[in-house]
């Protein structure tokens, strides 16, 4: 690598001397990072810092912690945070319950059939969130697909309340997050050393025992990574709860939008946002620690 850098400097120096002298030869290979870092800074990092700054002022523009105190004092905030947490957790559970068996099956297939399934998993990733929320409305609403079918078969007389509630929200979110959960888990399962499984089989372990004690623990880091990703992304969901929840599901991001649009309360919106961001980072940190512990224990097991 260093050889390529030095020769690049020599030729670059001949081509446009002033440019390379300005930045110095040792910095030149890193110049490519600048545009990316600048754009992410301007559009994501700076906005987050700005929110942190805004959250520290009250309505009158005085420095205070009122925005954060309000969040602790008022029941409505606590309810919204609890709702967001529950909806996200339910989504993670659905992804794990449906995703782990599916990933196990796909990872046991041959290359070709596995590629077909992965293609099928990727298809929904290509269709817009709005399109899918709309499709679920068509299926779940009062005179939607499921209710019409159940009524026409005579199983029920009154339409079931399927849309505009937590159930519809979790269903819609699971539909969106499942592909994102499956990809790392399938990757982790494909990476498992199959000779360990054969060894267990040859020593007379049962299928269920081998799956529980050997296969799943080895897939655990991948499952944890996928579950964390789903949980973190679910915390910030806006579109799906807004459409499929129909006003009955209030989550944090909707509250932020409402504080801003309806009450123009910048400080309050910013403070909720900062708490959401901190919970996101805290969750990711916790997951990283758990994964380290799991891996360390497994490392000890193999040693």
């Amino acid at each position, binding site marked *: 690598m260093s050889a*390529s850098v030095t020769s690049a400097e020599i*030729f670059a120096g001949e081509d446009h001397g002033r440019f390379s002298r300005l930045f110095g030869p040792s910095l030149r290979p890193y110049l490519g990072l600048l545009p990316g*870092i600048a754009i992410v800074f301007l559009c994501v990092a700076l*906005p987050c810092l700005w929110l942190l700054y805004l959250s520290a002022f009250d309505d009158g523009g005085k420095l205070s912690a009122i925005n954060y105190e309000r969040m602790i004092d008022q029941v409505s905030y606590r309810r919204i945070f609890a709702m967001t947490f529950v909806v996200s957790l339910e989504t993670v559970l659905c992804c794990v319950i449906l995703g782990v068996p599916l990933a*196990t099956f796909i990872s046991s297939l041959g290359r070709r059939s596995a590629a077909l399934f992965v293609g099928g998993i990727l298809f929904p990733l290509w269709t817009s969130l709005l399109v899918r929320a709309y499709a679920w409305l068509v299926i779940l609403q009062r005179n939607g697909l499921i209710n019409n079918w159940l009524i026409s078969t005579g199983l029920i007389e009154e339409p079931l309340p399927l849309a505009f509630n937590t159930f519809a929200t979790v269903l819609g979110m699971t539909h969106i997050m499942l592909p994102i959960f499956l990809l790392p888990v399938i990757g982790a399962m494909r990476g498992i050393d199959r000779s360990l499984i054969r060894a267990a089989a040859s020593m007379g372990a049962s299928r269920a025992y081998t799956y529980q004690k050997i296969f799943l623990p080895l897939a655990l880091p991948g499952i944890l990574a996928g579950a964390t990703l789903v949980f973190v992304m679910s915390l910030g969901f806006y579109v799906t709860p807004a459409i499929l929840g129909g006003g009955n599901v209030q989550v944090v991001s909707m509250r932020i939008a409402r504080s801003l649009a309806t009450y123009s309360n910048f400080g309050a919106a910013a403070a909720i946002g900062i708490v959401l961001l901190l919970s996101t980072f805290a969750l990711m940190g916790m997951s990283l620690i758990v994964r380290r512990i799991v891996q360390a224990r497994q490392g000890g097991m193999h040693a």
Partner: protein
Amino acid sequence: MLDGFARSRVLTFSGWAFALAMMFFLIAPSLIVVPMSFSSSEYLEFPPRAFSLRWYESFFASLAWLQAARASLVAASLTAVLSVPVGTLAAYATRSLPLRMKVTVGAFLLMPAIVPSILVAIGYFFVLAQIGLVGSMTGLVLGHTALAIPVVFVIMSAAFASFDPNQERAAESFGAGRLVIWWAVIIPQIKGPLLASALLAFVTSLDEVVVAMFISAGSNSTLPKVMFSALRDKIDPTVAAISSMLILVAVFAVVALLRSGSNRPTS
């Protein structure tokens, strides 16, 4: 399911049944809007009783929808054009960083994918308000580019991991300039991933709702923004027609990807 064990017919059968049911769950809901878009009814009925093109007509006859479609296509194209070189250069430069820096820079460039989009939306709104760019195409494209950078960065980092640096060194030793090296040596080796990341960046912008909702306005309001408000107020079947056309775009993109020969999963 686990090799080394005798094949169990029951287990194999239930495995396939479960997997196919899950595929149905993943794929069918998105496709349901296609027949709905040809319905002649005001209401969402499935299956439609009579077919017509009235929702497509209502789309192409509406100035508001057409303007939104134009804004979305312009924003998505510019986002792809901007984010692909920026993300690719970043992925290329990251290779020569020391490990610790590599992790830090990677984490920073992935931030747009991790920070909840509502936060990016409102924070970025305040930043744009300071420089008077709220509602402008420039602000929208920059914001979408930031959201697309993680996608491009991940794909291109993977591409550079399996990239042969010897050819680059050979070209250098023969005196090729950086531009020639990029054009004749590097780009031909990463063509497939470049196309994949361009398509994904395009779709990222085309589907993005939350940031667009806050910072696009007037004639620059994007299709998802207008669709979102159409869905919140009442269920307008024109949305089914637009959804079907968006699915067509997605299918075209996937086919283009497969034909370009880079049919690896975009994870």
